[in-house]
């Protein structure tokens, strides 16, 4: 319709971007602030980065968060892929609608409720069978896995629905048994969806505060929990430094992933163009 944005739309766009990015930019700038007062510029310094790395509480939380994120993502990918496969390939079995609904429930359920119900479950389990003996890594891991596997299942399912099912039929026709087909044909075809499900799970888990709050114990504090409790006591330049590092890491990872994907696409396009040229030249 319009090739050029009207000045009004341009203005809205600029304001929108400023609104999104000014806080992040100011956060990064103030992480290099000499002064302890977050609102006053006291000169350039990297001392908050040094003190961040020296802070054992934060470093322990970082380590725990990364461990939980990787473990949850791993479990979520395994369970979510199986669930997604069942949702996509076994269309009609008794209770399939219920299963599909329950599978995606953790995505739409308020986290407070998920967290609370899990807490109640763990407490009664502890009383009945003595497991889990305390709240900590295991309980958080279970909670995050539940949440993340729903996302993985959805991503894997939609990818599976795109794939021509006759590929699996063809493999069976050529003599492969169902389990083999799953590993040799289906899994490679959904590997990209699984990878993005894994990354999504890592970010969801790293970021989760509410469910974690219900499921963590005294000895296990995750990074979001530490940040939250510190910020509640007042703004803190160390946290600014931590946040800046996070922004940097996330930015680099996203750029790298984009670059790799673009590259793969470009190679593919080139190959297709070459094939077309050749077959054109032959006929």
């Amino acid at each position, binding site marked *: 319709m319009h090739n050029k944005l009207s000045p009004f739309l341009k203005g809205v766009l600029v304001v929108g971007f400023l609104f999104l990015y000014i806080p992040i930019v100011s956060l990064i700038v103030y992480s290099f602030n000499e002064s302890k007062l977050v609102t006053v510029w006291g000169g350039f310094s990297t001392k908050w980065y040094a003190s961040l790395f020296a802070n054992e509480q934060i470093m322990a939380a970082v380590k725990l968060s990364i461990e939980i994120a990787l473990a949850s993502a791993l479990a979520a990918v395994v369970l979510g892929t199986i669930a997604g496969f069942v949702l996509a390939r076994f269309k009609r079995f008794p209770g399939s609608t219920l299963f599909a609904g329950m599978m995606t429930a953790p995505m739409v359920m308020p986290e407070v409720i998920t967290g609370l119900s899990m807490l109640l479950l763990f407490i009664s389990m502890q009383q009945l069978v003595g497991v889990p003996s305390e709240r900590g890594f295991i309980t958080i891991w279970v909670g995050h896995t539940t949440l993340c596997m729903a996302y993985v299942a959805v991503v894997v399912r939609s990818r599976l629905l795109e794939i021509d099912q006759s*590929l699996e*039929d*063809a493999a069976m*026709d050529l003599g492969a048994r169902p389990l083999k087909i799953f590993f040799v044909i289906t899994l490679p075809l959904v590997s990209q969806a699984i990878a993005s499900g894994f990354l999504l799970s890592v970010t969801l888990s790293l970021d989760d505060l509410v469910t974690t709050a219900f499921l963590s114990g005294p000895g296990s504090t995750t990074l979001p929990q530490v940040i939250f409790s510190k910020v509640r006591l007042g703004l803190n330049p160390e946290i600014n430094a931590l946040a800046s590092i996070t922004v940097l890491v996330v930015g680099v990872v996203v750029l790298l992933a984009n670059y790799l994907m673009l590259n793969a696409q470009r190679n593919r396009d080139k*190959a*297709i163009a070459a*094939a077309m040229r*050749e077959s054109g030249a032959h006929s």
Partner: protein
Amino acid sequence: MVETVKQAAASAQGAPYLRIANVVKKFGDTTAVDGVDLDIRKNEIFALLGSSGCGKSTLLRMLAGMERPTSGKIILDGEDITALAPYDRPINMMFQSYALFPHMSVADNIAFGLKQDKMPKGEIDARVAEMLDLVQMRKYANRKPYQLSGGQQQRVALARSLAKRPKLLLLDEPLGALDKKLRQQTQLELVNTLEQVGVTCIMVTHDQEEAMTMATRIGIMSEGQLLQIGSPAEIYDYPNCRFTAEFIGDTNMFAGPVVVDEPDSVEIDSPELGSRIHIDHGITGPKGMQVWASIRPEDVHLDVVPQAAGPNVARGQVHDIAYLGSFSVYHVKLASGKVVKSMVAANHWHENSITPPTWGDTVYVSWRPDMPVVLTR
């Protein structure tokens, strides 16, 4: 109907290599395949032809083992395979979408089935090379499927389905994904390849030209039933029902009762024609029975000079003319409103020094009494 099919099959020379015995497949309330009996000889190329949704693919999938028949038996080379899993059957299929594994090279695609059989590596390599040569794709062994054109993909799919030397090869719309020009060229190429390896083959298609060109015998399917089985010429010249007559080629169909029933001739009264249809051979059926007479457009003569009124002649106006290169099809509208098609060679008028009739001209259609085919259903 089933009886005639059985007789035709029994009279076929040699023992059947594949026997499909009264196979039925129901999906809930719909009957996709309704009591099909079919015998296939060794090394035959058999085409299942029918309109969309008539159950061709379902029948093929039952042969491949992807669907289990509701009832009936499938016997291949003396072995009852009705309950055998797809991965245990000595049958391979070429899928309509080719179903090449996108993450594997051409060579790996062809080797896939051989690897499932735990064939030694050396033998696999030799067989893959042989298959690549067979379809002239050796140069492309290391390509991925998306790096190939449609015709090349089709050849790889064929090589993959032949690699295990199946007892029976199934082809679901083998050329359906190719454009028309490529399809005609590929038809003969495909037949040559199949004859070269000598494989028994059932193909499914809804393109009658493809079936006529490629197959040794054709089975006409409609609503889950096999209506007629025969060679392309038999099916064209002697259709056994209206569906086949109208589905294969073009025809003029007249309905009416039998009014004269002699041992060596019959006459059918056709209100649409405005006269009788005289046929110079007897039929089995009582006088007064409702029948149909089918006359191919190439058997209908077109005259501009008045013809004596009588059976097998009618007067009409040229309603439409379709010029198709070496011949033209005249659509002649009779007094009843019925349109009769007549195929006329392009040089017919010139050779007989006649001015070709044009739109609105009065013309006469007629045919020899041995031309109509009488159909009772």
